[in-house]
């Protein structure tokens, strides 16, 4: 190919890749997540901050030198859903769930990530608040909720709390 044409093709390629990259890494728009009516959710129709940083559990304190239960990290089962495999691990301190860390959140396309980015912090907060996997699903993210909570439940069983 002629050098001038090669340069044009290279330029066009670089432009396309840059546009694609930008579109793919652009921050997700805020997502309105309505809570499921079942189970009496905290705040319905809340606008969720899409930043992936999960809320930090507040009740990290234990009762000093007298541990009330098991501590450690427990990996939950991997759960298959129609939108991929979900798996979490829980960090348990003195018998209390201190943190829920996602290991796999199913499909990684932008739509799925958008849904997960909105739903996962809510699910995590609910689990930490209830200290249980028996919390309501986030609507619009039913598969994520199902897989995530099932994995949390199995981790809780493993932790024996």
């Amino acid at each position, binding site marked *: 190919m002629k050098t001038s044409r090669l340069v044009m093709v290279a330029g066009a390629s670089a432009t396309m890749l840059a546009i694609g990259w930008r579109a793919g890494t652009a921050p997700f728009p805020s997502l309105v997540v309505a809570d499921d009516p079942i189970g009496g959710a905290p705040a319905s129709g809340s606008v969720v901050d899409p930043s992936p940083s999960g809320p930090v559990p507040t009740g990290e304190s234990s009762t000093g030198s007298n541990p009330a239960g098991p501590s450690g990290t427990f990996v939950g089962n991997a759960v298959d859903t129609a939108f991929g495999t979900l798996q979490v691990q829980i960090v348990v301190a003195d018998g209390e769930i201190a943190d829920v860390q996602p290991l*796999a959140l199913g499909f*990684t396309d932008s739509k799925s990530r958008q849904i997960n980015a909105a739903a996962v912090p809510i699910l995590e907060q609910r689990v930490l608040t209830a200290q249980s996997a028996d919390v309501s699903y986030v609507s619009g993210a039913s598969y994520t909720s199902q897989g995530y909570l099932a994995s949390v439940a199995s981790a809780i069983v493993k932790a024996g709390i």
Partner: protein
Amino acid sequence: MATTAIPTSLPTGTHGVPVDRDRAIRARRLSLWRDGLEAAAWLVTVAGISFFLASGAMVWTVRADVLNSLGRLLGIIATVLILVQVLLASRAPWIERALGHDKALKLHGAMGQPVFLILVAHAAFLTIGYGSPTGRDIVAQTAYFLGHTRDIALSIIALAILLVVAVTSIAAARRRWPYETWHAIHLFAYIAIAIAVPHQFTDGTTFKYNAWARGFWASLYAIAFGSLLLWRVLVPAVRALRHRLVISGIERHDDGSVSVTMVGRRLDGWNARPGQFFLWRFYTKELWLTAHPYSLSAVPDGRSLRITVKPLGDDSAAVGRLSPGTRVSASGPYGRFVHDARVRPGLVLVGAGIGIAPVRAMIEGYRAGDGQCDVVVRGSSDREVPLLDEMRTLAAERGARIHEVFGHRGDGWSTVDGPQTLALLVPALPDCDVFVCGPEAWADLVREDALECGVAREAIHVEEYDW
């Protein structure tokens, strides 16, 4: 055999200048077209990658995600390459004219192995990536895909089919399988491509949510398979029905070669130029299964087409046993071995073996005054060169010079004691187009010699004759 009718597409200027200007314009257009096709292939690949990036599928956080992302990327690249392969095999005129039939097929074949390896990597990465969160290894995850999915299961079957095609291609190349057997298996690749389509739209993340990406992807398939269907099925079928070719005469020459003349209806509407070839299908028990490439050995006169075949292989021997009245169909014309491909004032035609046939047609299509024409005929003796008498007569009529290089093989393209370089025969060689037709190894030697003598790369036109 007609020597009067010459297609109007030939250069008609008699004083060099207008013809050369036309030639320069044609050369520029061809270069633009070739580069345009190459650029299109690159840009389509890059567009696929860009859509992939835009879907946000490139994730680096978890090992499984990295594997999945790379796997998807490889799948997109492999698919674009496969569709380029389909286009190269589609015989679309806009490909054939730019690349030439032999180069298009060569490229099609050369892409096979890398494309297959990319596809294997695509499947392996995604299977490992999908399996790792659940602790399934690649075998267990494959079994899971086969049992729990429809579209991914189909694509696994597609890959298995491609594996069979790849293995038989290697086996065919090594053991010289019959072409028909290999080709029949090869056609299964199209089935594999077809059944692998759904998973790209339903499981791949690039095209699932983006309508533009979906449209882009679907149009790639439409162009590649549309061309294939049009130029390999519909056009040949229409040609067969319209022209109804039938063998009208068989002429056996003293050197052992056979000329087959075919007549048909409305042949003047089929614009074949001297030097081009068709893929012929002769409807006899031995030959109907395969289409054979044979060059026209005479300028088509609008009523008949003539080929000359030397009985070398099984099938060309069977051509020698053809009889008048046999029905024939053909697709074509193909090939860049034509006067229109010239980019220099002078013309040198170099032929050996049955590669003489298109050279003979090119001499017939040459007009005195359209640059000097030199014909180099290579053979072991004058008794084994096909159509030699016809060429001598035509060359005398048209003012072309024939150089007969007969004798035992030397180190180069020439004979042991013959002229060792084309420049000795044609002093003005750098100002000439050199057309070479003959066995591949020999043609390569002629090409090397011409390059060393200062002939420009774009002025060397080689038609390979090994298939």
